[in-house]
């Protein structure tokens, strides 16, 4: 396996991403969008697509840059540092990976649209309060040559802005993944008022018609297509959360060096030094798990589950710690909306839940390790 060191290409990609995102997507951009009531920004996504990010996992034959999972993680990590909002995870990582499992012409053309930024996707899996795809109950019973979808999905990230949905539903003999446009009759989207201002929807499906054409992969075999897509998404989300942790941490260390109380910089106090140092250690350990997950997805995807769940579990714990410690060390100012730490805290909580929380992934780790 490629070593657990950032390659020269990866370091370069990170630098380019950082340079771009500092201008295009600083935290203040998220604040502006939140205040304006929408976090959609099609123009910025077009720019990202032009840089090859939307097609990061799309084959070159379909117009993608095909840089691989580790590279996708690098981009997600940089996005996380400044809480950039974009369809990157839903479209460029999750949907692209799902579509890549299918080799027909329709999938090829869908991939091309993702790479160009022309089409965005959202993944509609959750029905209850927790991520648990295998237990999806949404009904997709056969109807003539097609299917009729009935049921409700929630926590569909990017669900209000996306052009298309990947919908997981129960067919006669298992789960099936459907790829359908949002404007199909019977689909009703209600935008959720998320704590982190992200685009999330609750979606109701009432007698939504789907044909065999709309099925991604084989009927009753959704997981063949969905599992790799989820793993890619979980790894990239973990990377984004690691970036978030690094962003919150950098802000905190800076504050420790500036803020004075009792006549000295508060960073002189050992109680705070040790809290900060411990947090750094946790961030370092988590970054190893992220790097490993990217390598495994690129080089041994069949056996990547442990690495991915380890990354998401660690990233979740670390991000929650980073924002809590960050807020505490900022004192009262950290509690104000005018300060950015609250944005980090809210995003960390939402990301902790998305695609499986700590318990979900720790269970996966324990199962693979023979508990």
């Amino acid at each position: 396996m490629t070593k657990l060191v950032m390659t020269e290409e990866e370091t370069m990609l990170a630098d380019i991403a950082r340079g771009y995102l500092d201008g295009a997507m600083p935290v203040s951009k998220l604040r502006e969008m939140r205040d304006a009531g929408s976090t959609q920004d099609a123009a910025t996504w077009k720019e990202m697509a032009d840089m090859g990010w939307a097609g990061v996992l799309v084959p070159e034959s379909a117009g993608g840059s095909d840089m691989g999972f580790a590279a996708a993680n690098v981009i997600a990590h940089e996005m996380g540092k400044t809480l950039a909002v974009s369809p990157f995870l839903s479209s460029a990582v999750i949907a692209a990976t799902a579509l890549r499992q299918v080799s027909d012409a329709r999938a090829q053309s869908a991939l091309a649209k993702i790479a160009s930024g022309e089409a965005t996707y959202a993944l509609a899996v959750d029905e209850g309060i927790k991520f648990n795809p295998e237990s999806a109950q949404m009904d997709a019973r056969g109807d003539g040559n097609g299917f009729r979808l009935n049921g409700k999905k929630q926590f569909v990230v990017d669900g209000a802005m996306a052009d298309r949905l990947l919908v997981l539903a129960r067919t006669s003999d298992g789960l099936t993944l459907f790829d359908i446009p949002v404007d199909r009759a019977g689909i009703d989207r209600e935008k959720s008022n998320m704590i982190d201002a992200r685009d999330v929807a609750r979606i109701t499906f009432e007698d939504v018609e789907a044909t065999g054409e709309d099925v991604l992969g084989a009927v009753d075999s959704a997981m063949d297509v969905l599992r790799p897509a989820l793993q890619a998404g979980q790894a990239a989300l973990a990377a984004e959360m690691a970036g978030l942790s690094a962003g919150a941490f950098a802000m905190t260390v800076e504050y420790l060096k500036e803020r004075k109380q009792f006549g000295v910089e508060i960073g002189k106090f050992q109680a705070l030094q040790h809290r900060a140092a411990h947090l750094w250690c946790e961030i370092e350990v988590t970054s190893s798990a992220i790097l490993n997950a990217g390598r495994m997805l690129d080089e041994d995807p069949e056996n990547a589950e442990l690495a991915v769940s380890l990354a998401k579990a660690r990233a979740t714990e670390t991000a929650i710690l980073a924002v809590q410690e960050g807020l505490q060390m900022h004192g009262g100012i950290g509690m104000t909306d005018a300060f950015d730490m609250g944005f980090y805290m809210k995003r960390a909580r939402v990301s902790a839940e998305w695609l499986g929380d700590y318990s979900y992934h720790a269970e996966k780790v324990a199962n693979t390790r023979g508990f």
Partner: protein
Amino acid sequence: MTLNPIDEFRAELRAWLNENCPEEMRDGLMSEEGICWGGKDWVFTSEAQKIWLGRCASKGYTVPTWPVEYGGAGLSREQEKVFGEEMALINARSPLESFGIWMLGPALLHFGSHEQKLQYLPPVARGEVRWCQGYSEPGAGSDLANVQTHGADQGDHWLVNGQKIWTSYADKADWIFALVRTDRDAPKHKGISFLLMSMDDAGVETRPIKMISGISPFCETFFTDVKVPKEQIVGTENRGWDVAKYLLTHEREMISGGGAGLSGGGRALGAVINDTMDEMGATLRADAMRCEVDTLAIGLTLERYKDQSEAGQGAGDASAMLKYMGTELNKQRHELMMTAGGSNALEWDGPLGNRAGDWLRTKANSIEGGTSEVMLSIVSRRVLGLPG
């Protein structure tokens, strides 16, 4: 068919191990009793242990990465990895463990003269001389640079007087490497020398300290007018702190490796928890899962830092981080092992062997080689740049 060099190395090594590792040495035992420490007074616990040491030493496999001329096998890191894998494959015991291998070797290889390397290293590699470490003193624990053991300059030798503490296995060692103050007027970090002394010298006395785990691996060591020839210094006079710091890094990496379960304890946790699941319930399992997640992540971090330093990207002060995270985790793991063992774990040499002793031993992990608090202060100062 031709093999690439590393596969060829693996094939040869595998054949050699199959041929030469005695059956009794294939139990992977790393408990205190199973270790071969070597030394001139060493009593082999079995004929197989003796044969295994002899055969490994003749190939340089007791210290696989040391240069051949100093008793090693001159393996590259890639070959060393293969060596570890092949040893693990047949569950082979380590032929020899010692402070000479872990600590003195790296110090001499980095700071010693060619003559010193030739003189001191091959006997270590052959398991003929056993070393101990004289660092801490009653008044120099976390403040290690405050050592007061004094070496008075007598022209061709130093006259050493003072006391060391926590000298592991000093009562069984043949030689000691020690931090000795050779300039009392210099700032504390700049008046220390790294000296080598024979434990047989007149004026050296050791006394074992009984620890909470019931055994006495640590000693107090006293020096009274001990003559140390000038050629028995490693590095430059009064620059011993450089050697000490270099070695501390090694020690920390070693201790953190144990914490990450690379020495075998980690694999046991899942099995132990499964055995007792019915009686223990969900909370223990949840705690063990958390511990497993962290164990794997720290293991990967050790791997990452090795890869980084090999790629020439300095690991910097990462050893402090690894030491802190690894030892705290190891303590936690042994707490879980105790809980999983229930009342069976509470007896000395009870149904679970020495589990209680092992548990108590781990409590020193976050103290020895620099406390967790010292590690955090190092990170805070050197990595985060917070004001001192």
